[in-house]
């Protein structure tokens, strides 16, 4: 750890160390040789990553162009880019491309927010109140064992082809992921922390808000990372099942017209959306969990 600790003199006076300033990375405090090695390693990794990309994408293009693989089924990178260009300039079958992206993102985001909030509220409530978990635990397990995608069909029947059915499907997918983590996180709160807060005078509500929730947030945030992915799946599968707009609709249309380039192009857009969401989630995590000690870096995927 790079933080200096205060020195305590025998008289009990404390000499305050100068604020160490923003956290420095681990490599910087090591000797310059190690820092140079780290930079070299980083450069090596980046260039190898670029090489992998060139080989895979270039290889695909080459194999399709030379006819080793059938471009009709497999398409190829430049054809996918051309598809994206056409969609952007001329619009898609369902209207302008940005509109399709926006609709899918809207469904996913609303479903995500609703699912996360419900998941946290229900998870913490069941984690804190024994009676609730005893009564509802079994039902939640049963509902959870139903493959969520089939719920989508009944949602289309109930809510129609519009945005509502997709939002609800996305929310259901997100809810379970967040719920189980919030529940577990609530159960795993350090008993000493709870006892200490109670002894200091905290009411049950204060313990929930100021001890249980912040503690469970490490778990909840972990589930939020994966659950935006679930929200996107919910929105797109909902569109597969029945819609006349959105990225999922573009994919079904491309599938129906034997247009692999269209499927790949939509996949590419979805990937970009997911990556942006992942980045935003990282920012949120940093903010909410700023009290945690900086993690020692390791391979992270």
């Amino acid at each position: 750890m790079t933080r200096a600790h205060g020195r305590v003199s025998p008289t009990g006076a404390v000499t305050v160390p100068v604020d160490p300033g923003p956290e420095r990375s681990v490599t910087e405090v090591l000797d310059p040789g190690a820092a140079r090695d780290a930079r070299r390693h980083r450069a090596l990794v980046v260039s190898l990553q670029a090489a992998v990309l060139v080989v895979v994408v270039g290889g695909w293009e080459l194999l399709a162009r030379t006819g080793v693989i059938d471009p009709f089924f497999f398409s190829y990178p430049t054809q996918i880019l051309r598809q994206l260009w056409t969609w952007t300039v001329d619009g898609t079958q369902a209207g302008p491309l940005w509109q399709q992206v926006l609709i899918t993102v809207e469904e996913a985001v609303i479903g995500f927010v609703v699912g996360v909030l419900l998941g946290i509220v229900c998870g913490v409530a069941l984690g804190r109140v024994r009676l609730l978990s005893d009564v509802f635990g079994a039902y939640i397990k049963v509902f959870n064992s139903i493959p969520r995608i089939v719920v989508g069909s009944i949602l289309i029947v109930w809510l129609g082809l519009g945005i509502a059915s997709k939002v609800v499907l996305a929310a259901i997918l997100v809810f379970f992921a967040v719920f189980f983590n919030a529940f577990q996180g609530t159960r795993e709160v350090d008993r000493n922390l709870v006892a200490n807060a109670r002894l200091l005078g905290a009411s049950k509500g204060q313990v929930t808000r100021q001890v249980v929730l912040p503690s469970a947030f490490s778990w909840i945030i972990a589930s939020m990372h994966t659950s935006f992915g679930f929200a996107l799946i919910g929105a797109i599968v909902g569109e597969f099942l029945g819609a006349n707009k959105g990225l999922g609709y573009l994919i079904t249309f491309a599938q129906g017209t034997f247009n692999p380039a269209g499927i790949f192009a939509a996949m590419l857009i979805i990937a970009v959306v997911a990556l942006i969401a992942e980045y935003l989630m990282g920012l949120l995590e940093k903010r909410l969990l700023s009290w945690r000690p900086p993690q020692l870096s390791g391979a992270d995927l």
Partner: protein
Amino acid sequence: METPPPERPEYGDRAGEPAIALTGVTKRFRTPTGGTYTALRDLDLTIGRGEFCAVVGPTGCGKSTTLTLVSGLERATAGEVRVHGRPVSGIDPDVGFMFQADAVLPWKTVLGNVAAGPLFRGMPKARAHAAARDWIHRVGLAGFEDRHPHQLSGGMRKRVALAQSLINEPRILLMDEPFSALDVQTRALMSNELLSLWDQTRPAVVFVTHDLEEAIALADTVVVMTAGPATVKAVYQVDLPRPRTVQEIRFDPAFIELYQQIWQSLRDEVQLAYARQTAVAGVA
């Protein structure tokens, strides 16, 4: 020197009653395998107001259980626990507790942690923060108000915990091996600090420890507990003058004599507890 702490309104408080009185207290726990484990059996113990009492005994004998009963975190299976003459029926706002493990909230700053008690009890934020700053200063952490616990050393976190308990001005302070995780030097410093802070408000203290030297250096009375199920084996008065400096008092001849006396009593229990532990280990 002998000025009593300012009296606070004593609701339902019987004057003349001791701070803590345990009579015939038994505590059994249900074990995960379905059996019962008796932690305390027929324990009688009285601690006067403003008295500093150290409880020593072999590891795992039920010393901590005694504290949880007094604090109201757990109920006695049999017998009676009274605090200031009132039977304990829940968490008492007059009782402070310092845990063996870190129990400060890691997501709150030093200021937030120390101000937590008054805020939980409904004090306005400005006043709570002012009081917290005062206590942070008193425990020697001025300048660290905005740090989070992970940015502090173990000794500093203990200071936060101490300020966190004392800001509520408890009339009883329960301490469960609070300094056992600290290195020897920091421990001695913290002990001195504790004594001078205790002298300011003079709460009754129950200080659980397995370190006899620490117990004698700090306390007015030392209670020796038997190997589990625990009960009181003997109580010793420590008539060493105050104020004390814990690093130096152990060279006092009276200290050494007392140490030998109490150790005679404690040794048998420690050996018994150790023999049981190794027997269990041998079977397993």
